């Protein structure tokens, strides 16, 4: 490749990386900028006011709630969705299209609509403003994604592999640990990451059902106090980036 073309390509790649990375860097810088007045492109004074205010306003509790709900909803979705994904992946269903349609239906409905509808019953059942209620509400949108991500892993060849291992005398627990989970790893990691991220980013459902999560605490600050909004956004961006890196490393491909 000629030097000019190589330089052009490098400049283009750098521009793309900058376009992706700069907004994230800006969030972090704005989060620690106690003073950043225009027209300056750099902050005049750095500090921790944004993070301090965020934690004073309940960021710690919201962070814990978001993490607990995302992990619990994903784990529950995995437990409930695993058998269905297996049946769908191994093509053992008479009407797979109908099952996929029912599973996919909640994804077509606005999260806030689902949340508003659920509050009607959650109030009566004492589930409103509770962690359990929020997990159940998130399950409505997390479960379809987890099942859809898992389906691709349950191929007929995996079933054959399991049957061979069973004939060699493996107990069900060892079969799961030594054969099924390793063979299923890419789909499993993607399903866990996807389930976690879908729950992590939920706003409408969480707002309707109660208990402030990180997005619910963040939104009122967006156009009011950029430093606090950026501090909260910085907190909110860490788990998704860790999920992306973990997915890329464990599956050798991005999400």
């Amino acid at each position, binding site marked *: 490749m000629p030097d000019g073309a190589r330089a052009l390509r490098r400049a283009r790649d750098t521009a793309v990386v900058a376009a992706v990375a700069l*907004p994230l860097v800006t969030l972090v810088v704005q989060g620690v900028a106690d003073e950043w007045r225009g027209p300056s492109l750099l902050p005049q004074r750095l500090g921790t006011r944004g993070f301090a205010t965020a934690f004073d306003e309940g960021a710690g509790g919201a962070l814990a709630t978001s993490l607990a709900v995302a992990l619990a909803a994903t784990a529950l979705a995995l437990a409930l969705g695993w058998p269905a994904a297996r049946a769908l992946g191994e093509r*053992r*269903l008479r009407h797979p299209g109908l099952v996929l349609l029912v599973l996919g239906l909640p994804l077509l409905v606005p999260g806030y609509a689902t949340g508003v509808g659920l509050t009607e019953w959650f109030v009566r059942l004492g589930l409103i403003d509770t962690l359990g209620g929020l997990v159940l509400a998130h*399950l409505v949108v997390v479960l379809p994604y987890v099942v859809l991500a898992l389906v691709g892993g349950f191929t007929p060849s995996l079933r054959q592999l399991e049957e061979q291992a069973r004939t060699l005398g493996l107990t069900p627990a060892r079969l799961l640990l030594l054969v099924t989970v390793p063979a299923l790893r890419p789909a499993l990691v993607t399903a866990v990451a996807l389930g976690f991220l879908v729950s992590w980013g939920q706003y409408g459902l969480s707002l309707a059902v109660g208990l402030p999560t990180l997005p619910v605490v963040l939104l009122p600050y967006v156009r009011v106090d950029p430093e606090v909004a950026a501090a909260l956004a910085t907190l909110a961006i860490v788990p998704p980036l860790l999920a*992306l890196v973990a997915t890329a490393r464990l599956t050798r491909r991005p999400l």
Partner: protein
Amino acid sequence: MTGRARKRDREAGPSLAVWLALVPIVVLFGTAIAGAVRQSLDPGFGPGERPLGLGAWRELARDPTFGDALWFSLRTTLLATAISAVLALAASLALRHRGAAPRLLVSLPLPVPHLIVAVGAVLWLGPGGLVERAVGALPVDLVGDRAGAGVVLVYVVKEAPFLTVLLLAVLGRRLREREEVAATLGAGRWQRLRWVVLPAVAGPLALGSLVVAAFALGALEVPLAVGPNAPQTLAGYALQATQLDAFGGQATAAASLLVATALSLLLGLAALRLARSARA
């Protein structure tokens, strides 16, 4: 597996397995929709026992701001979905023969929540934002503008990469083999694109675009963060109804959200038909 075992599996095993996932969805989602319908018919507080009625629905039909919200939601949704789909198609065709690094870069916005992208848009593109400081005032207001350009921009930044990753998964080795077969039969570059590539990606692109449109139609956080105060989206209209009237507003909110739900389902039907005709 023996034929008898397979038959037994089809008859007994899968039903229990599938119901384990379907029951929570049917119960939770079904009660949510039933709850929303009941709330939309709720007459609110008043003297004596009051029967369910269509008061909230009549109010929606009379309220011009609801019409504005409906139009604003549809316009931003369709625009964001169409732009994302076109960009994703172009990007996936450009990237399909490239290595893992460009694919990783494209997938970077995927895990970032919509609200965080909206925060970034406000910091960069809002009044007094970094772009304005660097190059001067922008010719159009992107944050808080009545046309909803900022809302569309945030959706495109988030959804074009999602659709690109989806299409890159479709544009795999098997499709390349079919293209090679077409090439040996004398098909040119544009003919291969028209008759081999586009039919293969049309179905997944339609279904992916449906997920994008359904999200954009009902999302609350992006319009609240970067959208105008008026007109609102359908979800924003619903939220405001509950804020203005904590009791009576619930019925209006539920009715407005059910309209968004119905639109979303209609879009779903259209996308399914498109995907099916592309496969045929």
